[in-house]
């Protein structure tokens, strides 16, 4: 395994990963392009680079998935304006699967409930505040009316009573009706009719691109560390 014993490796002078990709590509396309002795060496080096990239991506993706899973624990909120009806919104809460939970919202002005999936005894309105108890449901939806919500911010907090988890979020509606879901330290903008949830998730594509770049750098370092070519 590894490089053939008849190839002597000398220190490389800064070959990058791209160079090795090009070389590997050439090997793949035409073995006759490079002498057989070098071909085997480059082939093995190519395998090493690919292994580094593969495992780096794999580990990073696993870590990202785990982190995302952790971030998603807890109650998530979304707010969606009701189409064609002024000042009415659908407020949704999801993720209270960890047991009985409470949600408390403070609106910028008086709020009323048009309809909800919650039993009547499981929520309480008091002017500008709304308290909800999620007992047997992991999610709920409330059709609300709040004239002051446009160009205002709805502050939300949640708490689970069996595991002690709690969190906060904010949802603001601009004067043009754009809904933005905010969480402490993080900001994410959404658009009307397409509510987002907190906490904000990083784009998977951006994450993958970043990971690939890191992998390429690692592969370059690997190649450099393994020595130069067999010229």
């Amino acid at each position, binding site marked *: 395994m590894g490089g053939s014993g008849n190839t002597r490796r000398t220190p490389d002078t800064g070959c990058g990963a791209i160079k090795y990709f090009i070389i590997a590509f050439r090997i793949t396309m035409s073995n006759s392009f490079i002498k057989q002795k070098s071909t085997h060496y480059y082939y093995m080096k190519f395998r090493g680079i690919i292994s580094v990239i593969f495992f780096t991506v794999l580990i990073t993706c696993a870590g990202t998935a785990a982190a995302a899973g952790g971030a998603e624990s807890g109650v998530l909120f979304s707010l969606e304006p009701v189409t064609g009806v002024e000042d009415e919104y659908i407020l949704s809460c999801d993720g209270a699967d960890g*047991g*009985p939970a*409470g949600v408390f919202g403070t609106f910028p002005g008086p709020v*009323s409930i048009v309809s909800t999936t919650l*039993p009547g005894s499981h929520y309480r309105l008091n002017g500008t505040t709304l308290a909800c*108890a999620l007992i047997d449901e992991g999610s709920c939806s409330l059709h609300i009316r709040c004239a002051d919500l446009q160009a205002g911010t709805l502050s939300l907090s949640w708490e689970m009573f*069996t595991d002690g988890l709690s969190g906060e979020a904010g949802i603001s509606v601009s004067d043009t009706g754009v809904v933005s879901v905010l969480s402490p330290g993080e900001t994410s903008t959404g658009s009307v009719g397409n509510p987002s949830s907190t906490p904000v998730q990083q784009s998977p594509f951006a994450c993958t691109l970043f990971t690939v770049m890191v992998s390429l750098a690692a592969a370059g370092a690997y190649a450099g560390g393994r020595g130069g070519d067999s010229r």
Partner: protein
Amino acid sequence: MKTPRRYQCAWLVLLILGMVAAGPVSAAGTGTLPLDANGDALISSDELAVSVLDYLEKKHTGMGADAGQYGDLVDGAYVYTYWNKTAKTVLDSSGQAVTLTRPIRRAVVMNGEAAETMRSLGYDSTNVVGVGKYILDDPVFFPEYAGMPNVGSVWSPDYEQIISLSPDAVFIYADFMDSKGDEIQETIQSMNPAVHVLRYDLFEPDTYAKEVGLLAAVVDREDEGTRFAAFYTRQMDTVTGRVAAIPDEERVPVYFESSDDFKSCAKGSGYHDKIIIAGGQNIFGNATPAYPVVNPESVLFGNPAVVVKLQGNGKLDFGGYEDDDSSKTTELYGSLIKRPGWKTIQAVKDGRVHIIDTDVFGGPKHFIGILYLATWFYPDVFADVNPEEVHQEYLTTYQHSMYDVTSHGVFVYPAAHSLDG
């Protein structure tokens, strides 16, 4: 939209709840189910919801929810979620049926066996608010309890200290202390009837697996209890299954000696039971009392094929987890085989004199000691059994300990690898 009448009802329920909450609320179980406003022994969804809403309003309107109210809410949510909305009745080893209306969040643990087994069950040690003297005396094995309030020894509890800790439950021995256990329980409950006193021995091979199940139910770790009991039973079955095939007349004659010279064991003692489980024939099994001091000549006359000497307590208080230096054990071993006349004993001739530490022979770890005995009594039958590996698995997997038995502690002598050599 809700009607004003429904709000009136809600406020009425709140009023009732407030009256209930105004009563004595402590960490210790009061015997009533939290949040059970209508007293039907069930926490309903609406009862829990009222409590949640009341708590949220108080918290977010600056009134502030008091600790008692929050404690009731959290306990009620727990009961609602994990106990099917009602109280949970559990059993202890003394035959008591105890009804828990709340999870045990403040435990006082008097005996090390209970503390060790709770750890095997994954019980959160931060729920333990006080421990017995002997647990505190063993910081190597129980580092998590260092500095914790001392509630005295199992024989002489510090009752004032126990009550001052406002425990939900106090764990003491079941039968080990006979009437002393009853006295301790009565004293504690006379000082605070709301404190549950739960009793488990957790050191006897005959009952250990069952007791693990009972304790697991008390601390709500049933799945962990099942897994750990399966591990324990597997080790014990390894011994009993193979020993069962050995005819009585082929059982190995064994001389067991405690840390006191020539103090052996007989029927009615735990040591004797462990020898029998491991397939040995105790040469003083029929002696009286249960821990007889035997005549040195009778040991020569008995001519045991295996000698087992106990260290780790009494005059031989060395070895075990706290001791990495085996020099005293080595010295003990040398003095044993040089006893007058012992060179004629078959065990000495065959190099089958063994020292075992009480750390792996008593308490919940008795199964490790029994595995050692079995491998000493029948090396061919148990050639594939490595007690040291089982010991490490127990510590790593069930005790969640980083302790490495291959580089620390003195548990047996000669060590297995030196015998192999």
